């Protein structure tokens, strides 16, 4: 499997994401792809990392969504490729319209960095198959704009179609329905605020984030590698 980690100007979790993929999964190729790249079509999975793309000026993700590489990201997403946006990556996917809803400031108006309990609401996705449904993960959050907002109808749709993949066990930032991560309708695009790439090693406090990356890998293997 070949994975692309997109580097926007101002991304700062790009290397962490690449380490997570490289050091803890069997993914063969992990490339850091600059925001100016024309195409990412040769990759099997595309990761949008956290950070402050374009300083998060105006709104988080608002400017990054127009980075040259995004055209290809959007078209690959529409073709069904795996796309994962974490933190700022999630915000960019929202701004790009690949996922519904928007982010507002955390209710306490402060940046929050701490490890929280994140519940796996749906283990039937390509992002969560290595987790148990209902499993509670210890994963760090680190964001100022993680207060997920959507209208009632969108929320009902998300819920009904099991597209709420992760939720916070307690209200940390004001998110509608304590949503921490959602997928698109087709189920190939995931956005989540918590940082699984920061939860890869017990040495650093938790390895509960691994399942996300291994799930993505296993999904690719199961759909691409013919076993005899």
């Amino acid at each position, binding site marked *: 499997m070949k994975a692309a980690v997109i580097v926007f100007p101002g991304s700062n979790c790009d290397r962490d994401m690449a380490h997570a993929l490289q050091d803890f999964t069997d993914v063969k190729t992990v490339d850091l792809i600059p925001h100016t790249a024309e195409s990412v079509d040769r990759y099997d999975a595309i990761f949008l990392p956290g950070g402050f793309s374009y300083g998060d000026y*105006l*709104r988080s993700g*608002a*400017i990054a969504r*127009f980075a040259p590489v995004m055209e290809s990201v959007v078209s690959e997403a529409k073709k069904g490729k795996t796309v994962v946006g974490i933190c700022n990556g999630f915000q960019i996917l*929202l*701004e790009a319209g690949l996922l*519904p*809803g*928007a982010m*507002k*400031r*955390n*209710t*306490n*108006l402060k940046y929050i960095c701490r490890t929280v309990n994140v519940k796996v609401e749906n283990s039937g996705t390509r992002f969560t198959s290595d987790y148990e449904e209902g499993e509670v993960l210890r994963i760090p959050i680190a964001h100022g704009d993680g*207060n997920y*907002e*959507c209208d009632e109808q969108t929320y009902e749709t998300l819920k009904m179609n099991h597209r709420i993949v992760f939720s916070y066990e307690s209200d940390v930032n*004001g998110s509608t329905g304590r949503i921490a991560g959602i997928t698109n309708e087709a189920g190939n695009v995931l956005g989540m605020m918590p940082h699984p790439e920061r939860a890869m090693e017990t040495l650093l406090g938790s390895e509960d984030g691994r399942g996300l990356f291994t799930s993505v890998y296993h999904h690719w293997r199961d759909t691409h590698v013919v076993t005899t």
Partner: protein
Amino acid sequence: MVNVHVYITLKEGVLDPQGKAVQHSLTALGYEGVEEVKVGKWIKLEVAEGSDLDARIESMCEQLLANPVIENYTYQVEREAQV
């Protein structure tokens, strides 16, 4: 060139954490009778004049300046008073 003022605010019904905090602080500071506070953006742009000005402004707002999912915008064009 004309000055364009774009005003952006959260849509009706979208909870505004900043507005709430400001209202709270104002009340705590002893300002009575502050009922509702909304914090929005005011973006000032210097833009080239032209017959398509309105179209351009609207498109800038919808594409970038405002997020139509949760925000509304209005704008005003300020022209130098003609002599």
